[in-house]
Every structure is written in structure tokens, then in C-alpha cells.
């Protein structure tokens, strides 16, 4: 476990940077303003919205990023000195927020509005993932997992 700590932490730092960069990238494109979000997905007028294939491209890339990060974080959490309930809550929040974020562009297009939903999922998914990554970063390998629950089933 001690030998794993350095590479695990290095990986987690990069994962946190990736999530933070994604948030900044989106924010710089107006993803934190509902009106900007609606303009991006729906366009200024009928027929000017983002092509449907672009929504799928976003889902495709997002599913890869979230899938890998959640898998790694979920695999590491059991080895962290955190209460089982906290581990479960952190992981469940990150998974739900990530799925909501992947679905939100489709929701905006389907509703013909609701840019605030996309803003919320952008912020919540980033916060949830960063919290989970931060928790692992702070507690991975620092003694036995708390709560008497060991990683091995």
C-alpha cells in the first residue's frame, strides 16, 4: 500500500486537474449561464441548434472520462480511511452527478430550454468528482479503512 501511494496520488492529481480543466473550459464557453447554454444547444432560432451528432459526441467523450475516473476512484475508495457511509455517499453522489451531466444536453434539447439544468449538472458533477478525488487523495493508504470494513469482501 505504501508503494502504491505515490503513483495513486499522482494519478489522482491528474484526474482532479482534468475535471477542473473541464469545468474551466465549459465556464469559458458560457456553460455557467443558462441563457448561454440554451444558445449553445438550441441556437438563436429554429434549425440553428447544435446538430444531434454533436450531442452524442459530447456523451461519448464524457462517458469515457467519467467512466475511467469513477472506476479508479471507486476502486481506491475502499482502501481509504473513511467511514463506509461516507465512502458510499461520496461515490453515489459522483456517479449520479456524472450521469446527470451526460444526460443534461439531451434534456435541454428535448425541453427546448432548461439551461439551468445543464449549469447545475456542470457544477455538481465537477464538485462531486473533485470531492471524491480529494477524499481519496487525502486518505488513501493512511492506515486501515475506517468503520471496520475492509476492502476485501
Amino acid at each position, binding site marked *: *500500500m505504501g508503494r*502504491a501511494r505515490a503513483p495513486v496520488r499522482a494519478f489522482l492529481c491528474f484526474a482532479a486537474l482534468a475535471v477542473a480543466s473541464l469545468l474551466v473550459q465549459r465556464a469559458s464557453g458560457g456553460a455557467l449561464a443558462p441563457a448561454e447554454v440554451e444558445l449553445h444547444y438550441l441556437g438563436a432560432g429554429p434549425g440553428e441548434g447544435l446538430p*444531434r*451528432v454533436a450531442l*452524442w*459526441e459530447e*456523451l*461519448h*467523450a464524457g*462517458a*469515457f472520462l*467519467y*467512466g*475511467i475516473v*469513477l*472506476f479508479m*476512484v*471507486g*476502486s*481506491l*475508495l*475502499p*482502501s481509504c480511511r473513511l467511514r463506509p457511509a461516507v465512502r458510499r455517499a461520496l*461515490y453515489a453522489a459522483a*456517479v449520479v452527478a456524472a450521469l446527470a451531466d*451526460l444526460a443534461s444536453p439531451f434534456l435541454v434539447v428535448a425541453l427546448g430550454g432548461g439551461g439551468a439544468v445543464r449549469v447545475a449538472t456542470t457544477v455538481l458533477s465537477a464538485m462531486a468528482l473533485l470531492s471524491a478525488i480529494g477524499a481519496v487523495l487525502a486518505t488513501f493508504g493512511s492506515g486501515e479503512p475506517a468503520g471496520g*470494513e*475492509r*476492502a*476485501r*469482501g
Partner: protein
Amino acid sequence: MAEPGLPAAQRAPALVFAGFLLLIAASAAVLFTEKLGLGPASVRDFYLGSEARFTEPRSLAGLLETAVPHLVAIPLVLFAVSHVVAAAGALGPRAARWLTGLSFALALAGVAAGFGVRWVAPWLAWTKVAAFVGLEGLLLGWALLLTGAAWPWPRAASGARRDLEEPGRQRRRGLEPTSAVHQERLGAGRLGEGQAGRPPLDHHGLG
């Protein structure tokens, strides 16, 4: 055969990963259909351009824009999923090697075939379609294997249900008698230790 399965703590991330694999495969299928079309003729048109569709041949920069992220992402996903499935003992070592090799080969063929259609031979569009369909099928298979390795959930995995069956009945179903598996695990002291062809799982359950 040793009882397959992941440690309880690793089941949720494995199931989540299986779900995301399905999302990746499903979105890839939609993108392939929308952008390249359903058959070799439309794939050929996509790469070589088409007067009927008013499209130009694909540029090297355009192909690399798609190829580069896929050359990182696909191997990473295949590495992760094959590693977990093999560590969980959900497949025999030989089958795991074959499936892993085939997955990587199809992934490489899929990426390379795009360049092949554009600059080597248009008939390689068949290779592109076959590699894509094959890889999609294998991704689905990996997701199912991952789900199988993660199933059942901790309560059932404690052996409560299987313990009810007598050893002979378990053997007829192709299962190791539970008592023998428990003995093997308890005797070894670590999960997976002492099982032929299966390295012990560490805290991450990743071997």
C-alpha cells in the same frame, strides 16, 4: 475451477464501469451510423468524399483528430476491463488472453482501416465496418463479463444462497463446492491466493 467474483468492495465500481462501457459503446454506434453510415459504400464515401453528398476526401489532420484520442482511450478502457475481468476469474486464462488479444486487434484494425480506405484501398471499408461491429460486440461482452464478476451483491456473495446446495448438486452445475472454496480461501489467508492461474487480489481488487 475457482469461484469467480470480485471482492465485495469492488463490485459497485465494476458495475458502474460496466454501465459506462455500455454508454461508450452505444454512443459509438450512434456516431458511426450518423457520420460514416451503415455499410461499406457509405464508409468509403465518408473517407474518399462523394460528389452526391458534396463532401471532400478526409484530410490527414481530420483523420488524426479522431484517431489520436481513440488510440489512447480504447486501449485504456480495454486494459482496465480485461484486467478486472481476469483478476476476478470470470474467464479462464486462455479465454481471457484470446478475448483481450482480439479486442486490441479489432481496435487497432478499426483505427488503421480509416487511413487504409483513404490512402491504400477503398475495399478496406469492409475492414472498418467489421472491426467496428466486432469491437462493439466485444465491448458488450466485456460489460456483461464485468457485471457477471460483480454479481451477486455482497449479501448473496456471502455464500448464503449457494451454501444451501449440497456439494454434489453444485458440482453438477459446474460450481466448486462452496465448502472447498471457503477452505481454499481461508487456508490461503488472502482472497485468490492459492488458486491456480489466479494471482491474489490486493486491496484494490486489481491483482
